[in-house]
């Protein structure tokens, strides 16, 4: 199950998709819209994708995970459009005979999805500003457009998906 949707994510459908009599464990990961980042508050997030490529990359990730771990099922769903607080933007489910593999594969899938799948989020801050989130570029304290256009963006390639201790945006 590989899906890009504008509707709320049906988590039960992901769990059904990875059910197997050969599975002893299933792990479901949800990435959700967090209200508080540092001292800023989020009102909503808007997700946009290069849909055809995103779907293809998600399918490649599922295949790669099945090569690396003995999985009995995998499912990846990403939602697009505007999401309110607490809503899930991404859901990943995997099942495997033993739980270690399900945990490892689930974590690898979300880490790698965040590195390679062409999807972008825009923070709509509670103060009325909004900005596109682009890891590796300095976050703008005042909203995206003016700051980015002002230049001096570093020539840093895509962020390597490191877990930021103090992320400047809604980053699980």
């Amino acid at each position, binding site marked *: 199950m590989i899906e890009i949707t504008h509707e709320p994510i049906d988590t039960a459908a992901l769990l059904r998709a990875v059910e197997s009599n050969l599975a002893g464990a299933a792990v479901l990961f949800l*990435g959700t819209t967090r209200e508080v980042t540092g001292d800023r508050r989020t009102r909503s997030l808007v*997700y*946009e*994708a*290069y849909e*055809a*490529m*995103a779907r*293809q990359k998600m399918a490649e990730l599922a295949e790669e995970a099945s090569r690396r771990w003995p999985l009995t099922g995998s499912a990846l769903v*990403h939602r697009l459009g505007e999401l309110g607080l607490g809503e899930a*933007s*991404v859901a990943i489910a995997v099942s495997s005979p033993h739980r270690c593999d399900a945990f490892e594969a689930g974590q690898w899938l*979300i880490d790698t*999805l*965040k*590195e*390679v*799948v*062409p*999807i*972008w*989020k*825009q923070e709509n801050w509670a103060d009325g500003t909004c900005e*596109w*989130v*682009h*890891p*590796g*570029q300095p976050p703008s304290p005042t909203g*995206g*457009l003016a700051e*980015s*256009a*002002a*230049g*001096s*963006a*570093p*020539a*840093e*390639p*895509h*962020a390597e998906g490191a877990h930021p201790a103090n992320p400047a*945006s809604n*980053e*699980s």
Partner: protein
Amino acid sequence: MKVEVKLFAVAKQLAGADTAVVELADASTVADLRAALARTYPPLAPTLASVVFAVNAAYADEQTRLHPHDEIACIPPVSGG
């Protein structure tokens, strides 16, 4: 040849359009495209240093050659999940 480039996120915002069109010499590479985009769309210039390109829905490198009917996309650092 004339190529169309899909724009997303901050690139779309800066260009004010979801597609950029640039004129390239035949057998141009992604590096040539990057330079042509900066000339043709000055507002995009600051962000081009941090984007990569996809050709036919696969990530490309600077040496990848472009063909007239390729599907080309400008990919700013991704932030899905």
